């Protein structure tokens, strides 16, 4: 490695100035790590403000507007407040696990940021198994919630922890099946490789079904409305984090906020081309702007979902996952794999030297898109039949009831 500039080739530059090579490597790694770990924590301060303002506007309120311009420093004030609050550990709690759980929870989210590609050259580390890495790391978050729920010695908390298994673990299945599709098309598990493969065409065009399933299941992975059964204020009070107070409670929440934005970033990187955009090769820093813009769109969509949708029941949640998302995602993987072979057999795939060309990608994209449309049409047809059956069943029950019971005036009016 040569010493070109101090930012990208720090280790080489340090060696030129006479530092030990191993130490120089270590310093470079350490600085990189510090930048990537601090990023989500700085972003979260802004995110909480955005989320509160957004939710306030949806609910016809103003939101935070007292501390700083437009209430921007409200989060800082809140953090200071949380730090000075008394931290209560309930009687009978398992102290070690109780204190460890919020840290594990936020660590599992921060670790994902190591593989998020921000520009052609800016990425924490481009692991060759990046896509699998973020799933593996994300699954540790499930563990954190179980630890919190179990160690609190509280029945509500334990109920929340049990629902984790029912929810987070189940929704991981369609999420990973949807993730298989970008890996299939790109032929790479490294996050940079997946983004590079989208220079010609975003994967959302090739497989909108996978993108949608990924979005829904990551939404469920964060455990927020309409999938917030592990917290469920109206039934479990606060679920797994009920006994937490002060900064530990704050960390759980910070972790959740970062997780939502992380999912938006992953969505942008995996299906919407990540940092791909005009002029990004000349000025790599533009990649930050592109991926941030794309991620913001998904972030706002998930905020909108959170503020407008009611919580689903647990049986609906599980049926939706196992009887809808999982079968559809499996069928989608098979269809995409089949069409990729067909495309190659017909010679419609873009030539290796034209892989970045939009026009050359069109035939393949059209074939795959048609495949997705067939899936969508089939699924809609099935849903329509199912709805018809359900309505018919509900009507027969109604008729039977009307036979048995004297009709109430209100019903008679119908």
């Amino acid at each position: 490695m040569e010493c070109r500039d101090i930012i990208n080739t720090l280790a080489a530059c340090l060696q030129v100035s006479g530092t030990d090579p191993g130490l120089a490597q270590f310093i470079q790694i350490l600085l990189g790590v510090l930048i990537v770990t601090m990023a989500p924590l700085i972003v979260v301060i802004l995110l909480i403000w955005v989320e509160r303002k957004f939710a306030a506007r949806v609910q016809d309120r103003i939101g935070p507007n007292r501390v700083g311009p437009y209430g921007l420093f409200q989060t800082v004030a809140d953090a200071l407040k949380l730090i000075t609050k008394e931290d209560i550990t309930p009687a009978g709690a398992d102290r070690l696990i109780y204190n460890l759980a919020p840290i594990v929870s936020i660590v599992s989210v921060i670790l994902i940021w190591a593989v998020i590609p921000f520009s052609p050259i800016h990425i924490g580390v481009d692991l060759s198994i990046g896509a699998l890495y973020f799933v593996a790391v994300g699954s540790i978050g499930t563990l954190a919630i179980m630890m919190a729920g179990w160690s609190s010695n509280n029945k509500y908390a334990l109920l929340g922890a049990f629902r984790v298994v029912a929810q987070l673990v189940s929704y991981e299945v369609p999420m990973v099946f949807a993730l298989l599709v970008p890996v299939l098309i790109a032929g790479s598990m490294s996050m940079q490789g997946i983004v590079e493969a989208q220079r010609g065409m975003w994967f959302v065009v090739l497989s909108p079904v996978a993108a949608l399933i990924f979005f829904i299941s990551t939404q469920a992975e964060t455990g927020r409305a309409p999938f917030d059964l592990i917290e469920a204020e109206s039934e479990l009070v606060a679920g797994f984090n009920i006994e937490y107070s002060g900064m530990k409670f704050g960390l759980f929440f910070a972790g959740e906020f970062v997780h939502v934005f992380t999912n938006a970033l992953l969505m942008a990187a995996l299906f919407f081309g990540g940092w791909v955009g005009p002029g990004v090769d000349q000025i790599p820093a533009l990649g930050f702007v592109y991926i941030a813009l794309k991620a913001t769109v998904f972030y706002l969509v998930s905020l909108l979902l959170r503020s407008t949708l009611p919580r689903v029941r647990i049986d609906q949640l599980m049926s939706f996952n196992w009887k809808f998302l999982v079968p559809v995602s499996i069928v989608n993987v098979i269809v995409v794999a089949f069409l990729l072979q067909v495309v190659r057999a017909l010679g419609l795939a873009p030539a290796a030297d034209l892989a970045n060309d939009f026009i050359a990608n069109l035939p393949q994209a059209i074939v795959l898109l048609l495949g997705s449309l067939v899936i969508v049409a089939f699924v809609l047809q099935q849903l329509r039949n199912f709805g018809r059956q359900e309505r018919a069943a509900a009507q027969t029950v109604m008729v039977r009831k009307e036979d048995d019971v004297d009709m109430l005036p209100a019903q008679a009016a119908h």
Partner: protein
Amino acid sequence: MLELNAQSIGFLVFSVFTIGGGLGVVTSRNLIHGALFLILSLFGAAGLFVLLSAEFLAAVQVLVYIGAIAILIIFAVMLTRSMTRLSEVFNRQWWLSAVVAVGLFVLILVGVILPVFGGMDTASVAPDVATTVDLGVALVDGNQYVLPFEVASILLTAAMIGAIVIARDNE
């Protein structure tokens, strides 16, 4: 001889995690603590996989063993009633398991470790490590592992059917 570089430091740290976690599993009375020690041990094993350049296996280790099996174990512990606070030893056959464990250890020591101890020449090992792509090709190649690949699927199906049969009452 052991050099002090990133790899050897990593090896030491992960070995401590693996062995320490294993010790924690067998010594802790609290079953949940035992399960968490198990996770530490599995994490150490994942680190050792990384040091062996088997990144894919490391990810699998975390995803399947920590993300799924360990959670199932914790979950099974929570399903049982008041099993989390055991105060007495109720396993009367501990000596039998000790004999089996020692026997297995000696077997591995004599059969695997001693023959290669000191005789391993690092230069003789091929530098190109098989990648995950090679694994994928080998799994579905008619001349290689396509049969085990499909048999694995049948095994998983059987496991799931068995679990459902056992867990659910006859209706």
